[in-house]
């Protein structure tokens, strides 16, 4: 055997799980793909976000909350074993509303979610209060107010990924780049994983290969339904601090750059379009007109890994126990939960008990109904 467990995929989901395994004392081998692969881990927006998540899926909302609450400890532990620092802050987050209609709809959503769970940390703030919270900016005339959630925060997703990758090595496990996995073969005991860099054996395998996950699990009768959704993002030059609160679609990083995003598109190519940049820039400058003077430095696109109902999938193959899959959107927010909750549950065989709501079996049920 080459390791106790092989993780296929070195993105933010695969590395967070691998880090979780390694912290439990397992020897882990992470196999990552080619340079040109789709990498949501390098394209994402960096919110550690609670409000509005899982509006119709209480289990997802709870897991999100748990993860957001675990983040500070997760970060501390992670920074304890690597050199890399990760910018992170949790001042609470905003969802701007640009009309009475948007404001009312958001208020209704908060109330609905509030009915599902007793959390008193999300409320509507009107324009006056918003102005008091952010004295350094003048809001556009359409800004009516915002929804404000104390549980929200943001982090630098690139530093997070680099730290997780380094931590895996620091904990004595291994990460191989340019090792695209072509197939996984169940053996009498354990699995053989065939990658471009060689073949590897382990008693357990976790496929966390983002949108490529179904390609590897489907041949083994292990169905992980996913859809891709393109998102385009913009980032500006570094600016003096103006946005103390991250917002859905608009945040200022610790470096000072302002990120604006992200579109939701059905497209499958990696392109970016001026039309989308225009839409994003327009919305940002309607919220804060002064941003129209900021210079755009980069525009890029990434692909969201989307289960059909939006909730994460953490599953074990029924036919081949020991074969797992993990696929979700919001891998940055969920990173802490992946390391501290999902990884231990996979090892201890408690996945179906502790995280039953996230099994892939839920889609069969829906089909029957």
């Amino acid at each position, binding site marked *: 055997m080459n390791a106790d467990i092989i993780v296929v995929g070195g993105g933010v989901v695969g590395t967070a799980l691998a880090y979780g395994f390694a912290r439990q004392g397992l020897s882990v081998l992470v196999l990552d793909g080619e340079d040109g692969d789709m990498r949501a881990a390098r394209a994402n927006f960096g919110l550690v976000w609670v409000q509005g998540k899982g509006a119709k899926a209480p289990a997802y909302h709870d897991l999100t909350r748990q993860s957001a609450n675990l983040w500070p400890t997760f970060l501390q532990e992670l920074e304890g074993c690597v050199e890399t620092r990760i910018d992170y802050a949790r001042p609470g987050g905003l969802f701007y509303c640009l009309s009475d209609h948007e404001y009312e709809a958001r208020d209704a959503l908060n109330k609905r979610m509030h009915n599902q769970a007793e959390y008193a940390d999300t409320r509507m703030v009107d324009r006056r209060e918003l102005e008091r919270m952010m004295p350094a900016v003048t809001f556009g005339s359409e800004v009516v107010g915002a929804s404000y959630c104390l549980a929200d925060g943001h982090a630098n997703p690139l530093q997070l990924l680099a730290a997780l990758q380094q931590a895996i090595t620091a904990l004595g496990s291994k990460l191989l780049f340019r090792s695209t996995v072509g197939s996984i073969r169940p053996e009498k005991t354990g699995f053989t994983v065939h990658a471009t860099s060689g073949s590897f054996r382990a008693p357990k395998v976790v496929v966390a290969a983002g949108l490529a996950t179904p390609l590897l699990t489907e041949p083994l009768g292990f169905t992980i339904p996913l859809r891709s959704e393109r998102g385009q993002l913009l980032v500006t*030059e570094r600016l003096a601090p103006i946005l103390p609160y991250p917002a859905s679609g608009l945040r200022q990083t610790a470096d000072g750059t302002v990120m604006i995003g992200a579109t939701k598109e059905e497209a499958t190519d990696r392109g970016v379009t001026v039309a989308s940049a225009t839409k994003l820039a327009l919305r940002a400058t309607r919220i804060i007109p*002064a*941003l129209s*003077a900021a210079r755009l430095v980069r525009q890029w696109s990434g692909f969201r890994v989307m289960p059909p109902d939006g909730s994460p999938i953490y599953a074990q193959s029924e036919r081949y126990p020991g074969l797992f899959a993990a696929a979700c959107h919001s891998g940055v927010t969920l990173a802490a939960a992946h390391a501290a909750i999902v990884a231990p549950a996979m090892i201890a065989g408690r996945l179906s008990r502790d995280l039953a709501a996230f099994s892939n079996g839920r889609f069969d049920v829906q089909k029957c109904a």
Partner: protein
Amino acid sequence: MFKSVLERPGVPPDMMVLVNGVETPAWDGETVASVLLRVPDAGRRSPISGTLRLPYCQMGVCFECLAIVDGIASTQGCLVPVQPGMRIESQRGPREISR
């Protein structure tokens, strides 16, 4: 550090521009980046370390000439010819966005 060969005693400069509020002679055809090289400490300050920088390439590829020109921040000075009365200000650290 730089001086125009067109500068002669008794001959007035082609125009005056304001660099950080100070009247500064300038010559037709030169750019904002060229003026920055003649005025002490008129360069930008890096938004990372705060160190002083001056124009490096003069051909639009290094972005060391960023300055606030007539109120517009992060302007590439080497692409902008001077105009009489132009206001040039140094960009110090991360740029401020006005309210």
